[in-house]
């Protein structure tokens, strides 16, 4: 199972929450800018409170699509309607529609609690999108954009190695 290399995880662990949240929100809003109709497919599940809990980071990310809100917290997971827990690389792969969620649920690399249908709706929604996180991440780096995007792509490729074809 791919986990975050300590070299990457450590700084995130010690970074102040406000900083992590600011970076995450910046990425989130740039994704939304690039994909304004991203959440259309969610239909009634736009109001769902989705929580993403990377098991290799002491953080929880809570997203409410309707409000376009993202909050980061530490410790106990926040109140949510549907929560998904797993290695960060897989969660990000899922966000990009790059991993087959069915396979991941079944391999128990990911665990889903709460409203399964809401999670399924999100999965299908993301699958129809063409989110490219390294590109979004790179966009934040201003003049270093191509460099950062390329580095992020490399990390993604390594983290997801062998996962692309792991279907249920």
């Amino acid at each position, binding site marked *: 199972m791919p986990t975050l290399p300590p070299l990457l995880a450590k700084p995130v662990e010690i970074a102040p929450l406000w900083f992590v949240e600011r970076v995450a929100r910046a990425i989130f809003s740039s994704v939304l800018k690039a994909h304004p109709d991203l959440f259309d*497919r*969610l*239909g*009634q*599940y736009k109001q769902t409170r989705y929580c993403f809990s990377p098991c290799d980071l002491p953080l929880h990310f809570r997203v409410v699509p309707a409000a376009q809100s993202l909050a980061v917290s530490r410790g106990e997971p926040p109140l949510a309607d549907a929560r998904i827990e797993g290695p960060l690389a897989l969660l990000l792969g899922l966000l990009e*529609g*790059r*991993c*087959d*969620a*069915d396979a991941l*649920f*079944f*391999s*128990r690399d990911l*665990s*889903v*609690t709460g*409203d*399964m*249908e*809401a*999670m*399924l*709706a*999100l*999965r*299908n*929604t993301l*699958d*129809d*999108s*063409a989110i490219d996180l390294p590109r979004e991440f790179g966009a934040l780096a201003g003049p270093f954009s191509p460099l950062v995007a390329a580095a992020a792509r490399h990390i993604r490729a390594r983290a997801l190695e062998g996962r*692309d*074809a*792991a*279907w*249920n």
Partner: protein
Amino acid sequence: MELICPAGTPAAFREALEAGADAVYCGFRDETNARNFPGLNFSREELRQSIMLARRKGVQTFVALNTFMRAGDEALWYAAADDAVALGADALIVADFGLMAYVAERYPEQRLHVSVQASASNPDAIRFLVEAFAAKRVVLPRVLTVQDIARLTRQIDCEVEVFAFGGLCVMAEGRCSLSSYATGKSPNMNGVCSPASHVRYREEEGALVSELGAYTINRFGPGEASGYPTLCKGRFDVGGTEGYAFEDPVSLDVIDEIDALKAAGVSALKIEGRQRGKAYVAEVVSSLKKALGATPAERSALVSRLRTMSEGQRTTSGAYDKRWR
């Protein structure tokens, strides 16, 4: 043989086109089709754009209207048929006789394909569908052996499409109320089977228990790969013995039978999986496309990669092989 490919989203539709589909099948975002899952399927506008894209590539689009019309709400299905025809669907895939009659009468020029959900499993059944509704093609239920199919095609004046890869219904399609017995939602009426809204996983002494509605469908030991609680693929107790009473969690793969199916007179191979992601569609379609053009020897190499994509990592040729029964 044509390759008929699934698309649950416009993104998957594009992947199917790129990967070499001869036709792509999809449905509207409501209960008029048998993959009525949240976040899946096409708006009218998305279908219009997808059909245009497909046309430019010389690829056909089939629209699945393969649930049974709810009494009193037939207008929803009729409107879906009207719109699919207006948007230029190359074929409508229909299961309900009432809807078939509507399409045959209203749009006699429109190609009508009989969905697997109609369960036409023999020559007399298919003759009935041709005579009554002018069906041009029948998707055969997954209950026949290759020999059955060969015998059947000789006796009918109708194209035959069979499932080649993907999820395997153990029961005759369109004739199964197991899901609604446990959840109130069925493939026939609601376009869903074992719906996620009724799925629950709970931890129990290290084991993961999957439930559908009020019923335990499976229990996975620590570390054991888990599965979605599709009812007919659950583990049950029959006469004190626990096991997969209907079918192990395997999926259908008939790549090894391609030549036999072709010889049997099959016109088209269908890939299941509108609910699967676009990456799945891309991979399966391109592999099967290659397999169709390959020699039997080249084929086995392609097969091994595809097998890793299957539920439970294992595949079966299902009813196409008599021993499956």
